[in-house]
Structure formats: C-alpha cells, structure tokens
C-alpha cells in the first residue's frame, strides 16, 4: 500500500506517495473527517470505511461539505 499513484480530488490531479489508505490521504490533504463526505469513482464511501479503503491509481475522489442550498 505504498506505491505512488495518481488520483483526482474534485477534478484535480494529485500524486500520492506513501500510504494510499483513504484516511491517510484525507489527512494529508488537511480535510477534517467530520466536516466532509467522500465518494470514490462516484460511489459513496462512508466515514467508517476510510481506514480500510485503499485508493487505486486513477481513482476519482469527490470530497464535499455542506453549503447553502435551495
């Protein structure tokens, strides 16, 4: 789980080296887990899965938070 991979976070390309565990990646990107929700390749990944979820090369992450809405 320490390969260098390339992922997309909210449409932007990132290179990940070291741990590809989702939780680690989120922390490195300075996200606070309680304030966000995550989808990988357009499928929802719940908070409880962050620690076990290994990202793969070319994964597309959507990381969202609450905004105003109508």
């Amino acid at each position, binding site marked *: 789980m320490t390969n260098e991979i390339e992922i997309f*976070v*909210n*449409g932007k390309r990132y290179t990940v080296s070291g741990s590809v565990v989702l939780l680690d990646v989120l922390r490195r*990107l*300075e*996200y606070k887990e309680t*304030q*966000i*929700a*995550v*989808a990988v390749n*357009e*499928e*929802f990944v*719940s*908070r409880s899965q962050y620690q076990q979820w290994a990202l793969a090369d070319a994964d597309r992450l*959507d*990381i*969202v*938070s*609450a*905004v*105003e*809405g*109508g």
Partner: protein
Amino acid sequence: MDSSTDTWQLYGETFNSRLLIGTAQYPSPQTMLNAIKTSGAEIVTLGVRRQSPGEAGGESVWKLIRELNLSILPNTAGCHSVREVVTLAQMARELFATDWIKLELIGDDYNLQPDPIETVVAAKELIARGFKVFPYCTDDLVVCQRLLDAGCEVLMPWGSPIGTGRGLMNPYALQTIRDRLPGVPLIVDAGIGRPSHAAAAMELGFDGVLLNTAVAGAADPVLMAAGFRDAVAAGRAGWRAGGISARQTATASTPTIGMPFWQQADN
C-alpha cells in the same frame, strides 16, 4: 379553531410552520439567519458541494444553521442522473445526519425542470436505501402518483421554474393533484416570487411552500421573510376557513331592504 393546533406531519414528524426555506443567495450569513428566524420556518434546505483541500468550505453556514436547531432537508441540486443523486444523497446523509433528502434530478438545463422519468427511478433507489424522500417534481399528476407508488410520503411539485418568480404557472394542474391525492402532504417548491403566490398555493389546499430566491433576493430579505410567513398563514387560513366562490354577478353587501327615498308607485 386554534392555529397553534393546525400542525402537519412529514415522515412522522410534526410541524407547525408550513413554510420551508432555502439558505442560498443571501447577502450575508447574518441576514440569512435573521430571515430564517423571522420566517418561522422549522425546515431549511441545504446543499452539498466540493470542498478544496485545506478549506473550511461551507462548514461555516452549516454551523450557523445547526445552532437554529431546525430540521435539515439536504438537496441533490445539480444532479442529472440517478447515480449522481444516489451518491450525493448518501454523502448528504452522512454530513447532515439525516435520512431526509430533497430529491432534485434535473432533466433540462434551460428550465431546470425535474426529470419526470428518472426522478421516479431515483426515488425508488433512495427509498430502498432507507431515505425519506422529498421529491421535487413537475405538476404532472401521473408522475406524482408514481412517486407515491415508489414510497414517497410527500410531494413537491413546482409552481414554475426555479428562480423565475413566476408563481403558479398552472393552478389547474396543481388543483388536480390536490383533488386526486387527498391526504398526501403537498408542498409547492420553486417558482414562488411574491407572498400572494404562496397564499394562492395554500388556498388550493397545498400543505406547505418551499422557497428561497424570493426571500434571499429581495431588497430586504428579513422583511420579505415576514411577508412569506404571513402569506402562508393567510393562505392556509383562507383554505381552512372555507372561502366564498367567485361569482359572475355582483351582490350588495350592505342590506338592500330599507333603502331610504324609495316610494311605492301608488303612494
């Protein structure tokens, strides 16, 4: 008949206010808060959007809203497919800790109308995943019936396209939905521009009104929130009080007998 007892239920929860209000487009967070408080709304809508790494994101808005202790109705605004809706709804459920979801699945980018076909599919998917779905839909009776068949316990047909402020484009269609679906909580969502539009929706027998732009985009959003609060109450009272029917011909209100100056012909 005490208005404090005129409550309604949505998925088993009881509410007094019949105005649902959005949180977008206000000139400032403080104005938003004041408008929401003034509106008396017990349910507010929120959205979900991408947050860049290291950003605080919309957390600030959500924090403010949370302190109001209202029911949150997250939306799936901007989704164009069932898949997007289902993923976004799950993200919203986790973020807002609610299984309520305003299902919004856009079918056309010009009029931003709900897709009448895919919205039904999405409703089924969401309900299968345990969501309590508030579907934003057109004023099509058959689509409404399919949404009920799918397990929705509330329907939110549009008045007119989002943000147009045109009010009730097709009151006949809305009236038909009301008449054909008695007992189903019905909320007019989208298109409301003025308080009189909201009152008219309630006078048709609708149970609630959901709006955003009409308040947030007013010159004075807080005063406008008061206007809509009163308008929804007014329309509701108008419906419950059993109004007069429109008549073709005039009838005096002041009594006509005993009019002075009148003399019998033979006097």
